């Protein structure tokens, strides 16, 4: 069977430039929304998943679910610290960090509107447990002082958190002595200070969370069993990676569901646009269709030519939309993660999977929009077609 040459298909689109552009433009917008939503969901997930370290384990009070809900009394912390299976650092100290985690309501630099920022009390060991955290400006806080260091997303976004600025809370002034970068993880959206100083300032007797490093991953089962068998410990132990992945679930799922249902509704508009264009293309070329058929091209060839035209049209839209969406990767965005009730900065992230999904989605729109017109073109009788000329 002979197929109609591809150049015939492509040139037909080119002849009606304005119509092609309008139709493809409509599709490009739909594809843009579709891609951006997927990129947003992926960005949140990637940010939070990257926050956890593979060998780190996080302890929370049973059923707490989030760090701010949790509480671990000092005596409980002491028991956990002495568990077997916890790695030590070069100086022989167990790699454990006992951390109070609270929220501080701070005004944004841009509009003064307040949002909750995570405040974490930590220590030198806490830094060792998170090797991805690097100071990029200033220095580390000194233990035993009211000094703090801020994640760079916070320093950029919130008043009073830049290098050399001070924050006032819990009856003290806290001086920002350093800015850190945690390599696009959730810690970029946190402020860190000395654990014991924060406990004292907030008048707390219980830590919020504990993090420790396992000697190796196989030690996890032993540690978990030891914790579950001790009636004094009403706590959950979780690999850090799993904990942060769970923290991203709510927001990422919400955005994905909202975005996908929007994309589907929008795609109806774009499909209608493609259908109108393709019907018009068929109507204008009745004579040509007749000629092609008379020349010996089969119905299938006509059908595939028009379908191909529609697919090509949607591919143009898809590529345009994807190109526009790829620029969104340069945009930093931050919003409140309602699972942690605190601010989370993240980037739109374009992955190969998203590229494939997006192009597939646009081709699908082209197929749905183009099939009926192409079908109609293929069904026409040669005599009727030629008579129309």
């Amino acid at each position, binding site marked *: 069977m002979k197929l109609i040459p591809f150049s015939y298909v492509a040139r037909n689109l080119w002849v009606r430039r*304005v*119509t092609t552009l*309008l*139709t493809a*433009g*409509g599709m490009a*917008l*739909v594809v*843009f*929304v579709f891609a951006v939503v997927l990129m947003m969901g992926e960005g949140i997930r990637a940010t939070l998943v990257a926050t956890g370290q593979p060998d780190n384990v996080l302890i929370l*009070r*049973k*059923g*707490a*679910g*989030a760090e*701010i*809900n949790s509480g671990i009394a000092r005596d409980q912390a002491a028991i956990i610290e002495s568990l077997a299976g916890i790695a030590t650092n070069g100086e022989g100290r167990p790699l454990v960090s006992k951390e109070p985690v*609270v*929220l*501080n*309501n701070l005004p944004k630099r841009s509009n003064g*509107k*307040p*949002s*909750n920022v995570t405040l974490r009390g930590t220590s030198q060991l806490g830094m060792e447990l998170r090797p991805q955290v690097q100071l990029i400006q200033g220095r580390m806080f000194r233990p035993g002082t009211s000094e703090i260091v801020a994640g760079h997303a916070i320093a950029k976004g919130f008043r009073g958190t830049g290098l050399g600025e001070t924050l006032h*809370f*819990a*009856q003290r002034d806290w001086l920002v002595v350093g800015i850190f970068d945690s390599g696009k993880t959730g810690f970029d959206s946190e402020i860190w200070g000395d654990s014991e100083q924060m406990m004292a300032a*907030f*008048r707390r007797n219980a830590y919020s969370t504990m993090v420790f490093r396992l000697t190796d991953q196989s030690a996890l089962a032993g540690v978990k069993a030891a914790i579950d068998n001790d009636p004094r410990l*009403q706590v959950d132990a979780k690999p850090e990676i799993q904990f942060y992945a769970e923290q991203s679930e709510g927001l990422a799922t919400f*955005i994905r569901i*909202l975005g996908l249902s*929007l994309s589907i*509704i*929008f795609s*109806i*508009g*774009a499909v*209608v*646009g493609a*259908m*109108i*264009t393709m*019907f*018009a293309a068929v109507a204008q070329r009745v004579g040509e269709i007749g000629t092609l058929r008379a020349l010996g091209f089969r119905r299938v060839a006509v059908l595939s030519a028009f379908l191909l035209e529609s697919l090509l049209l949607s591919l143009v839209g898809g590529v345009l939309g994807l190109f526009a969406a790829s620029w969104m990767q340069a945009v930093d*965005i*931050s*919003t*409140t993660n*309602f699972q942690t*009730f605190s*601010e989370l900065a993240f980037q739109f992230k374009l992955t190969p999977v998203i590229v494939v999904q997006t192009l597939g989605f646009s081709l699908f729109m082209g197929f749905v929009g183009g099939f009926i017109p192409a079908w109609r073109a293929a069904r026409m009788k040669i005599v009727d077609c030629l008579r129309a000329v």
Partner: protein
Amino acid sequence: MFILKLLLKNAFRHRLRTLLTMVGLIVAICAFGLLRTIVDAWYAGVEGTSSTRLVTRNAISLTFPLPLNYADRLRNVEGVTGVSWSNWFGGIYITERNFFPQFAIEPASYLAMYPEYVLQDEEKKAFLLDRQGAVVGRKLANQYGWKIGDQIPIRGTIYPGTWTFTLRGIWDGVDVKTDESQLLFHWQYLAETVRKLRRSNADFVGVYIVSINEPNNAPLISERVDALFKNSLAETLTETEKAFQLGFVSMSEAILVAINAVSFVIVIIIMAVMANTMMMTARERLAEYATLKALGFSPGFVVKLLFGESLVIALIGGGLGLLVTLPIAATFAKAVGTLFPQFRVSGTTMALQMLASLIVGIVAAAWPAWKMSRISIVNGLRQVA
């Protein structure tokens, strides 16, 4: 009248194309309305506020409590007419999916301060007398099929354990703005249980709600309250209930901005589709327009014809889109239940929907109308042959 008939006849000359365009319009205008309604729903908490209520919270953030003994000091602040308090409970009913707010409140003063929660007298009495009792809004009760006397088990996340409340009353909102999706129970019950459990002082409250005599004095009274607790262990931040609720909204501002932007994107998409339709129409009728001109009609008439036809299609499509929005919004509201305290299409949204279709109609016709008004009669007529 004649012109309108001509426009309608013209609009439906290419029936399939016009119908497809209208389907696109219906979907787009409907989606536009629903998106705006979602954004409105976010602000529902703000709409339901009263200007005579202030909220006093810990200055650090909402997650820090305030001591119970602040209540007496608050009562003595000039301009304050009543004080109540509440704690966010943050529990889970069966699974995480069933989200609704629960608050531990000081019942008598709280209900007095919220007259918009209309509760039968005997139900109110029963609630006040039962320390493990709870009251819920009508919408929440309907969603889970609760009846008076039912036991409601809720698993605490902030306060460990499973807490069981007996439903003592169901309130109706005084108007559509009133929140009917909350569960309220006795603060005393919470405090006593925590005291037993932790063997520690549990006399802390989440926020104080302060009623004031004169809405205009709100800034002044807020200042007085915050000055009172300045440099204390728990400094306070007092704001109107509206500002307090707006604080929550602004936290998810990025998402709201995105939804808003997207709602305009759909209008632009349909604009492109509609413009395409009008251009095809104009191209096909080149000869007709030339004939009209040859007969002596002015170029303005041709422009009017095109704009008229575009507007007829856009307004019919937009109107139908508006009509289908209402049942879809109602279904959606039922499906999401108490996730949004309220979900209804506002008058402004409907007006905006019509405005959007009007603009789509005008913009879509602009380019073809300009082009058609400029065709030379000779060239146009030549097309016929």
